[in-house]
């Protein structure tokens, strides 16, 4: 069963600038419309790692609510679509219900979905107990 974790009406240019400043990622496709246009992009592209951080927090909040004994051990992803400035998106999780939450072989999936419900990124997540 899929559970919706987070919904955004879109990240602003100011937020992209702020993430760029914090992370030191000064790739101009994230803040310079002319460069993005020159690269054939329809707008400023959101940093993949910014989205990663948002997805991580959404899962972490979900785990804390479900059981504070667990934390994220591994998170892996393959980006298949791009998220642009002001694009709405949402994050959903699908737990592997055939396994214990902290089973490292559990195939828990997290979806970063665009406004049309298409996956821009699918994550695999492994959880462990905080203090085993």
């Amino acid at each position: 069963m899929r559970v919706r974790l987070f919904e955004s009406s879109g990240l602003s240019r100011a937020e992209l600038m702020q993430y760029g400043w914090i992370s030191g990622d000064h790739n101009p496709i994230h803040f310079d419309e002319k460069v993005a246009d020159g690269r054939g992009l329809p707008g400023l592209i959101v940093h993949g790692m910014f989205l990663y951080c948002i997805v991580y927090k959404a899962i972490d909040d979900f785990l804390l609510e479900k059981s504070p004994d667990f934390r994220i051990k591994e998170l892996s992803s393959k980006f298949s679509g791009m998220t642009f400035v002001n694009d709405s998106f949402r994050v959903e999780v699908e737990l592997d219900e055939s396994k214990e939450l902290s089973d490292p072989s559990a195939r828990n999936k997290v979806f970063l979905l665009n406004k049309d419900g298409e996956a821009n990124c699918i994550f695999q997540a492994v959880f462990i107990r905080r203090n085993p």
Partner: protein
Amino acid sequence: MRQFKSLMGYSEEKVHDDTVPDIFIACLREADFKIFEVLDIDLDRLLHTTQTFDFMKTIFVGDEIVTRPAVTKVRTKLNSANPFVTLEITTEYFRNEELIARTSGTIFVREALS
């Protein structure tokens, strides 16, 4: 750290405590960008395609973290209409020589011959 936690939407209490979300290491990419500079790759030709994080230890505000990135795999396709290179960069994070996290990502470099 406060700015990061605030941007991510953490509560005021969390913003001001001394915890560090594990994913903050995603922001410690200065050495990655140094690799692109050394390889003379324009940043605007890069696209992130895959990324894996393995979080081993919790970190705290004040910890001194050392990052050690390495290019672990290179694939090229240059004899095509759209030549490209992919780089796999693996970075290990240490606190007092203790391995605390590892991340590996694939970077797609467009227009590799331009």
